[in-house]
């Protein structure tokens, strides 16, 4: 167990180092970041001065060292547009993104798991077919289109829910539903297939033969065993959700990190882009690390592999 922990810790460290290299490299993909950062009408003199000021004429490895040193102290430079520390901007927007992501997770899991269980228990019933068709559609729907359609129906036609910005809990419903749809569909299908597999096992038959009440068999004997893969996938879905939040926030004008990043990309505000990309990737890596450790804890079989 301890050995596994240390190994995972070391791996996570390596991955974070790689994340920093990729984040650094994004800006240097074209060779000379000056062309990206300065407006086209800048003179050759301006460019040369800027290149020197920013240290772009140093060897790449020196520049990376400087970037990494800054990143470790949380310093990604000032935002060109807001003239504030880039990381500060990202952290200011983080609560909105976390709120949206958690709401999406909550909505999708609380709908998907019951649907998955019911579909498995009542296999081939009308409910099963309808549920799985909806899940298949949900998996095929692009996030951005779903968002626009929800705005169209609930915001524009029915005028039931606010379509833009942040406010009370009603502002959260449409964006969270949009963001959560894919996870919901995936979790529902996964819950169904896991439950189907376990319901066919012999110990379930034994439990039934013993006279355990049907719902007790389903919830206490089957669901408990189906829970591990479901929980793992849900944990990994956090990454999908963080990625999806970028688009969802743009559609619903939700003031989170995703919208900030997209705007920063439009404005060529690269310190903010780098700070956001780095932060989101680190969060994802750390979530994975925690999920993995929890997984080892929940399922002792993993430890002895």
């Amino acid at each position, binding site marked *: 167990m301890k050995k596994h922990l240390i190994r995972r810790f070391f791996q996570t460290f390596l*991955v974070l180092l790689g994340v920093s290299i*990729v984040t650094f490299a994004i800006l240097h993909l074209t060779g000379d970041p000056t062309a990206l950062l300065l407006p086209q009408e800048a003179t050759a003199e301006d460019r040369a001065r800027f290149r020197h000021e920013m240290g772009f004429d140093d060897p790449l490895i020196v520049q990376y060292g400087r970037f990494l040193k800054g990143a470790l102290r949380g310093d990604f430079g000032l935002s060109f547009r807001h003239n504030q520390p880039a990381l500060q901007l990202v952290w200011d927007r983080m609560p909105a993104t976390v709120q949206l992501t958690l709401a999406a997770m909550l909505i999708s899991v609380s709908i998907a798991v019951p649907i998955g269980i019911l579909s498995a228990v009542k296999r081939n019933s009308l409910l099963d077919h309808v549920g799985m068709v909806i899940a*298949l559609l949900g*998996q*095929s729907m692009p996030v951005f289109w779903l968002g*626009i359609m929800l705005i169209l129906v609930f915001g524009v036609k029915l005028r039931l829910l606010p379509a833009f910005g942040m406010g009370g809990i009603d502002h959260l419903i449409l964006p969270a539903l949009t963001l959560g749809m894919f996870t919901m569909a995936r979790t529902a299908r996964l819950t169904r297939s896991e439950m189907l597999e376990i319901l066919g096992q012999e110990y379930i038959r034994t439990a039934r033969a013993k006279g355990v009440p049907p719902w007790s068999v389903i919830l206490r004997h089957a669901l408990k065993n189906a829970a591990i893969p479901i929980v793992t996938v849900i944990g990994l879905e956090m990454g999908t959700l963080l990625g999806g939040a970028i688009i969802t926030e743009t559609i619903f004008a939700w003031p989170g990190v995703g919208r900030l990043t997209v705007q920063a990309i439009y404005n060529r505000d690269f310190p903010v882009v780098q700070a956001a990309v780095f932060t989101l990737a680190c969060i994802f890596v750390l979530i994975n690390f925690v999920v993995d450790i929890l997984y080892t804890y929940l399922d002792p079989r993993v430890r002895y592999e």
Partner: protein
Amino acid sequence: MEALEAIDKAHGESSLAQLEKGLEFRKIARSLFKSKAALAGLFILFIVIASALLAPYLAPQDPIAQDINNRLKPPVWDPKGSREHLLGTDHLGRDILSRLIYGSRISLIVGLSTVLISGTIGILIGLIAGYYGSWLDDIFMRLADIQLAFPFILLSIAVVAVLGPSLRNIIIVLGITGWVVYARVIRAEVLSVRELEFIEAIHALGGQNLRILFRHILPNVISPGIVIATLEVARMIILESALSFLGLGVQPPTPTWGGMLNDGRQYIYNAWWLATFPGLAIMLTVLGINLLGDWIRDTLDPRLEI
């Protein structure tokens, strides 16, 4: 060496294998016609591919011809609609149906070419990492972890923004970053096939590593690769339209489904059809691929969980 050649032959072109293949094909065709879902998927894809190939013949109008007098015309079933524009026109008076038909081209080109690139890279890496193991395996799997740490869409928009949005750059970015899912699954498959007796036998007979890898292991691990590739076409199509939706896709006036959606978003209050139809096109295409992909998985490799 003779024994080796015999094994190679048995794996390749023996007439018995040919016969089995024929029977197999018939079995597959029958199972396809039995599965309504797979047929529906095939039907949808047939329409999408046909409209991409035959766009100039199928499209009723020029997809980029603007007609300001006829802007924001609703679809034909609306009292204000006209038969000239079955699905209405956009904010520049362009025919939406024609743009949808032409838009299928970009989606299919990007979907297929990116999967070809990422599938080739991913399967090769999976084979190498699984077969040779040790430090090669470690390096590739850490690279995979690093790649997976970035929300895919975030990485692609950042890179495309730096390189400049164009069809070529989109294909490069999506193609290069998509390898991880193949590599992981193929690697796991290779790990189990590697230990099988017939591989050991070929080793003992003096078979070369590369030859074992490509002639004997690859054919045994390729089915999950095919399943993933199918489903990845759908994911790549969604990613391309997401990039276009954010204005980082193939640039106007070339019609793309994502770009049409982005245009339509600004007219959501008075012209619902602008955003609705391109989204439907994306969803149906992706649905078609997913239906077919699910069937291919159930047929080739039912254990696979993707």
